[in-house]
């Protein structure tokens, strides 16, 4: 075999790696290995100068394989593949050793971390020596898009895509478009009408010639891969149902959220005390233009309780982000409708982080609302008032700032219910093959650098289904997802990873064990030749067939037995 010329690049990631791992020592150990022509360390290997250094070395020293010991390959493998391709190498001739996430960020003993970094880099060195050049496949990119969810998010994404020239199928489970925002009166902090906002969107969506709206509908299956999905949608019409099928290249998941069930917080008496209502029930009153108790009386005391289901160790630990400003909006709306009403606002912390929010809070606090702070997990308790009291209920609050136990009167209590993942989020995640976090929200490709893409190519997430957010952030994500898709579909084709399984016909015994194992039915059997074959475009490279083949006839490209064996030898050196 011709001798290989390998370059090894150990990234310091600023101080992220270098503060624990002795990068020079790793370089020294690697430079003594057979085949290593160049070994270097640098501040930021992913930066332009870092990449240019690798490119220049490839050209100057005739390197044919590259090892980059840096962050997770999930982060920068595409970066370095592109860089070495620029230098004329096959993009698969690079292997990364993950010495940041798997080493410097999780270990603190410098010697131990350096030893481990060296072992991981040895693993990458041994593996890259076995890499084979692979050609990526170019496949057609269908410009049509499936948008799941017809709320503000889904409608915004659909309009952006349709305005860009793509055909959109907008699928909504309910009978009307609008989602949760359609249940809201005014929006905070600028007090714009949610109804106006929804009406404008719905009108444009319904009139758009490139948007097909399917209400009362659900996506029942999604097959295929980026650029070439087939979606099956079931629509309920009165007592009948119909099934439609269409080809799409990309999917936007905009399934939103459901409100927290307030009856789960027993000390608030929701469902038992008739005048304890949720924020959405209060919105309904506002939309009807009349704030009143169940008995039809105008309330003299209104209390608003924040973080119902949110920021609690019992229910959801996260903040639902929109409730604080909505609560201030309620204080404002109650005061405008009933000027002599006493409004108390019972909160944990006032989260006023967005544009215009702090000013809105300032105005709210000047409007004679009584603000009472309670400690996390030390919830107020609501009970029915006695016959001698001039109010319906009494709320006991351990007021955090004064340290006193305070009792406040209330005729109407509004519970600011948080957002939670829909109960079908699990089914949706499986449908489109994406993951959920511990709270049930969909997981993005990267929380900071790639917030609307997912780990499945062609599937985008936007809006609250990825985590609680307000309308402006939702709109921004919807447009971001649409923008990503427009940028990808404009070229008409897409390069897909060259990683898939292939069967060596000479070794295949025709036993067909692999045929049934493939979850994508990507393996066909030629009865005349008595051989199985992998349809490469359909294969998703899991490798189940490779491990199962009794003849060792199937090769997982880029994850071959010999590559993995070499890596095992390397990490145990």
């Amino acid at each position, binding site marked *: 075999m011709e001798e290989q010329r390998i370059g090894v690049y150990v990234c310091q990631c600023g101080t992220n790696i270098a503060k624990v791992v002795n990068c020079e020592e790793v370089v020294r150990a690697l430079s003594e290995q057979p085949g290593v022509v160049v070994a270097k360390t640098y501040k930021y290997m992913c930066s332009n100068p870092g990449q240019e250094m690798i490119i220049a070395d490839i050209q100057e020293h005739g390197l044919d394989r590259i090892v980059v010991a840096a962050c997770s390959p*999930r982060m920068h493998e595409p970066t370095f593949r592109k860089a070495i391709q620029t230098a004329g190498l096959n993009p698969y001739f690079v292997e990364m050793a993950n010495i940041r996430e798997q080493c410097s960020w999780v270990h603190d*003993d410098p010697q131990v971390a350096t030893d481990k970094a060296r072992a991981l880099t040895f693993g990458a060195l041994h593996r890259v020596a076995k890499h084979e050049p692979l050609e990526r496949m170019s496949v057609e990119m269908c410009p049509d898009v499936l948008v799941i969810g017809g709320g503000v998010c889904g409608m915004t994404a659909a309009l952006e895509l349709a305005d860009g020239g793509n055909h959109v199928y907008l699928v909504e489970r309910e009978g009307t478009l609008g989602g949760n925002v359609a249940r809201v009166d005014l929006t905070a902090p600028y007090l714009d009408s949610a109804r106006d906002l929804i009406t404008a969107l719905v009108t444009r969506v319904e009139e758009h010639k490139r948007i097909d709206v399917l209400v009362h509908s659900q996506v029942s299956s999604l097959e295929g891969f980026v650029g070439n999905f087939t979606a099956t949608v079931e629509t309920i019409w009165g007592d009948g149902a119909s099934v439609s099928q269409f080809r799409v290249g990309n999917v936007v998941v905009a399934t939103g959220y459901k409100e927290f069930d307030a009856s789960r917080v027993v000390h608030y008496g929701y469902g038992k005390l008739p005048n304890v209502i949720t924020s959405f029930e209060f919105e309904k009153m506002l939309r009807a233009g009349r704030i009143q108790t169940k008995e039809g009386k105008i309330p003299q005391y209104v209390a608003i309780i924040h973080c119902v289901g949110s920021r609690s160790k019992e229910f959801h630990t996260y903040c639902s982000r929109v409730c604080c400003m909505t609560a201030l909006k309620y204080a404002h709306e109650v005061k405008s409708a009933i000027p002599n009403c006493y409004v108390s606002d019972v909160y944990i912390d006032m989260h006023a982080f967005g544009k215009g929010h702090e000013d809105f809070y300032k105005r709210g606090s000047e409007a004679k609302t009584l603000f009472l702070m309670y400690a996390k997990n030390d919830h107020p308790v609501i009970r029915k008032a006695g016959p001698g009291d001039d109010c319906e209920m009494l709320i006991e609050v351990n007021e955090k700032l004064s340290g006193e136990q305070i009792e406040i009167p209330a005729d109407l209590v509004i519970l600011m219910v948080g957002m939670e993942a829909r109960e079908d989020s699990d089914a949706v995640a499986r449908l489109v093959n994406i993951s959920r976090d511990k709270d049930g929200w969909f*997981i993005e490709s990267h929380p900071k650098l790639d917030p609307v893409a997912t*780990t499945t190519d062609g599937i985008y997430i936007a809006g609250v289904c990825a985590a609680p957010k307000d309308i402006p952030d939702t709109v921004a994500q919807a447009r971001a997802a649409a923008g990503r898709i427009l940028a990808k579909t404009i070229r008409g084709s897409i390069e897909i990873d060259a990683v898939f399984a292939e069967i060596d016909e000479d070794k295949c015994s025709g036993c067909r064990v692999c045929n049934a194992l493939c979850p994508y039915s990507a393996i066909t059997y030629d009865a005349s030749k008595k051989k199985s074959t992998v349809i490469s475009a359909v294969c998703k490279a*899991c490798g*189940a067939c490779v491990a199962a083949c009794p003849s060792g006839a199937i090769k997982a490209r880029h994850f071959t*037995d010999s590559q993995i*064996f070499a890596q095992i030898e390397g990490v145990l050196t």
Partner: protein
Amino acid sequence: MSYEPKIVGFLCNWCSYTGADLAGTSRVHYAPNIRIIRVMCSARIDPTFVLKALREGADGVLICGCHPGDCHYSEGNYKMMRRYPLLKKMLTDFGIEPARVRLEWVSASEGQRFAEVVNDMTQRVRELGPSPIQQTLAQDMAER
């Protein structure tokens, strides 16, 4: 110096490797004995990978995949789950304590859990002591 076991971890790309990355980004520290090898799916893990790792000097092998029902390839982890008891049986036949090999489910959001699994695994293998394979190999070499 006290005995420090070497552990090879085979992690699926979609759940467990991402979970290990999350342990990193969340700075959840864990025992440094593990050397992680990425595969696309736990179903790709050929029993020979495990045997190879043990032969090359690993004292333990950790296999991690997505939780049942959560596999990126819908059912790959079930395939691993079915291979696992056979693998354990084979190890016993070879005179290797089956506890040296372990299968765990770690999702992309379970960085903390990944760290706990690694710590627990490391402790157990430490208690088992060095793998008997190395001794056998050394004897073989000596007899030749």
